[in-house]
């Protein structure tokens, strides 16, 4: 066993000072920047500095808090960037033309299926991420956007599954194994559907 908290106080102080300096640098960039899209990108980046302060906790709790923090950042950039597109009237302006080469017809389904299978095998958050990447790759290789609504609905059901798992944990603690599996499958479907959604959201005017 390594003694982990040796001199933790002084490490924390140094780390906090560095994190604060990083926040000052990041926020002063916003004061100087005038272009809106660059503002959006910078603000997406400065959310990392908030996560740095959480990470300084250096416990298992910190890791568990970083995850919601990260997800909040991702969710906000998703909504605000779509809002920016509407505001600037950039939706459907330039149809994205797919690169029409042989490898884009054959490779995405195979790699996508492999990644999806591996992700389902792993389950949980990372599994959802990998499976979602596989689906996103698959949809990027295809020209159509037909599965848009269904993946949205799937993520809704996954959310319900997750809430149910939490309720089982709270009210029937003896059934923790069932709840754990429900939560793992729920989060996998949820993350997978979200990532796959990104694959189908493209600017093509078809």
């Amino acid at each position, binding site marked *: 066993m390594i003694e982990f908290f040796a001199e933790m106080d002084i490490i924390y102080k140094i780390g906090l000072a560095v994190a604060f300096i990083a926040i*000052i640098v990041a926020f002063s960039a916003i004061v100087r920047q005038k272009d809106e899209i660059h503002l959006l990108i910078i603000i997406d980046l400065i959310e990392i500095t908030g996560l740095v302060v959480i990470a300084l906790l250096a*416990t298992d709790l910190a890791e568990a808090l970083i995850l919601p923090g990260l*997800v909040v950042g991702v969710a906000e950039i*998703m909504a605000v960037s779509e809002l920016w597109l509407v505001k600037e009237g950039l939706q459907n302006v330039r149809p994205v033309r797919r690169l029409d080469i042989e490898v884009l017809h054959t490779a995405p389904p195979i790699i996508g299926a492999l990644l999806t299978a591996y992700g389902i095998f792993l389950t949980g958050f990372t599994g959802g991420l990998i499976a979602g990447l596989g689906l996103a790759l698959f949809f990027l290789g295809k020209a159509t956007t037909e599965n848009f609504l269904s993946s949205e609905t799937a993520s*809704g059901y996954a959310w319900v599954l*997750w809430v149910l798992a939490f309720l089982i944990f709270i009210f029937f603690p003896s059934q923790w194994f069932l709840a754990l599996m429900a939560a793992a499958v729920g989060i996998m479907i949820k993350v997978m559907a979200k990532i796959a959604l990104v694959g189908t959201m493209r600017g093509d005017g078809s």
Partner: protein
Amino acid sequence: MKEVQEAKDCPAKKARGTFAPFQKLSCYLSTIENLPKLYAICVCLIIVFGLCSVPFISYEEDQLYPKSLDPSSSLDPYDRGGVPFTEPAVIIAQYPENAPAIGYVTAYLTPLSQFLADYTFHLGTTIVAHPGGILDEILYYTRGFDTIVEASILFCAFAIAAFLYRRSKE
């Protein structure tokens, strides 16, 4: 470009009259594009104050969910002890009395991860990908409500983005 700038300016500036400092300030404040910058300046000022107060901030040694490292274990950074289904791991939670089944989720390993843990030394780097483990204990059980709120944020943000996107396709 000049027209855009003029549209953003407030009436007082267009009139080109004499400028009182307060008028200038209210002119700046009433332009909504300036509010993010104003907010950034406020945060900067507070953080500068925080930087000055760093020597007076002390780290509390008595933390919840402390981390321990054991390089000889195959679950290295996430080894919290316990045997799946039989012996729960020892977890320092905020209110252990509210979580009767605490420790079981931490101790659980799926058959695959049990196999990897027995034969390799690399499971610790991937344990977050399996159901079970300390992070799942915190995320699903003891602080499960956080995760539900987080999932709802993601859900609503995607609902906004999807609504705006779908409407553009109609």
